[in-house]
């Protein structure tokens, strides 16, 4: 009798307590970079899995185009309507853009933490990896200022890129359409 119970548990317990399956092969959630999120997560990138994500890269000391990137993302948010999206901005700058600094940045701009997150890279290499995966080009000068392209990507619930804006003046119709489709699909 004990033997039967033990066998039963050995067979079925692993299935019961097993975690979620691995994301698809082309998901960004395979990336190894360490990101702290303003949501409180220490696995900031992976922990967005399960929700559609609109993702861009910025840094808070950026005076020129980064405010325009936020404006573009707010435009997408308005066009998309209601949904469980995350609008996420990952920073290039591990030195200045710590999670607390990013939290303040969000609060100063009155961006709703239920839908907006910012990601702080643990080190330069983490930012470089995410930029590489999303097609963002950037460099840092001696003063710590970043030159960077303004790419916005759309990730589905499993972290696979489904749409991309190559610049702030790119056409957003297809992007918004896909974003809406993702909020319906589960």
């Amino acid at each position: 009798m004990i033997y039967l119970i033990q066998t039963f548990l050995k067979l079925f317990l692993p299935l019961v307590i097993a975690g979620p399956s691995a994301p698809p092969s082309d998901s960004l959630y395979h990336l190894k970079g360490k990101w702290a999120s303003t949501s409180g997560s220490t696995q900031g990138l992976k922990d967005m899995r399960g929700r559609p994500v609109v993702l861009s890269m910025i840094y808070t000391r950026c005076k020129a185009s980064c405010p325009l990137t936020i404006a573009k993302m707010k435009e997408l948010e308005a066009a998309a309507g209601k949904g469980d999206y995350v609008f996420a901005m990952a920073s290039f700058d591990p030195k200045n853009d710590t999670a607390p600094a990013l939290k303040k940045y969000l609060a100063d701009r009155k961006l709703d933490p239920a839908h907006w997150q910012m990601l702080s890279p643990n080190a330069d290499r983490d930012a470089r990896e995410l930029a590489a995966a999303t097609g963002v080009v950037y460099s840092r000068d001696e003063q710590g200022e970043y030159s960077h392209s303004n790419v916005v990507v759309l990730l589905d619930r499993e972290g696979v890129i489904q749409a991309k804006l190559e610049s702030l003046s790119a056409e957003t119709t297809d992007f918004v359409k896909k974003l809406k489709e993702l909020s319906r699909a589960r």
Partner: protein
Amino acid sequence: MVKIPAGQLKPFWIRPKSQDVQPKPIEVSAFEIQADPVTNREWLVFVKSNPEWRKSKIARVFADDQYLKQWRGDLVLAQGVLEDAPVTHVSWFAAREYCESLGLRLPTLAEWEYVAAADGQKADATRDPIFLQKMLDWYSKPQDEKGLAPVGKSVPNFYGVRDLHGLIWEWVDDFNSNMVTGESRSGNSLDKDLFCGAGGMSGGDKENYAAFMRFAFRSSLKAKFTTWNLGFRCARGGNK
């Protein structure tokens, strides 16, 4: 590893604002770099201990479907591919992972160009017409996808580093750091909305055609891209 002393690199990719004002040279800290590109033999050791980087197992986000095309299987090279040839058909993610597995890293673009500026006799041969012609000869010769030569056979440069020219192109850590103005391939005019910061760059040093070619090649790369003549080597130290 070969020790490379600190020095300066002229950023050939920045157009001088006028004849008399040269762009500020880039400071390169002393660092170390491998004398030769990483080989198939070394890659085999890596994938034996790191199965998720094998040809059949690699995640598609890390490499395209040409990954390790010159390998017949996870642990077997194709016919005619030499163990001591440079490993190619590896993506930036894979190259990076390899270096990190050894406590090393990819060289930065500045570091790579700095070391590659040397010929056999001097640290900076970028104004030497013989050196420049050699580069052009390599680029103008049609290359054969089959049968990459083994590493380490070329004449070492001033620092003792080999195969920086004439064998393969090489990944660098910040390959995605050069802003390009209006890509002529796509026919776009400069799109100011694309870039934050300084933005405008072009081949400032017209004589160094080879360096310009590398600059153009790198700007066409995507991190998961693999091709038959793109490999890498590792570095360590420096202020990276």
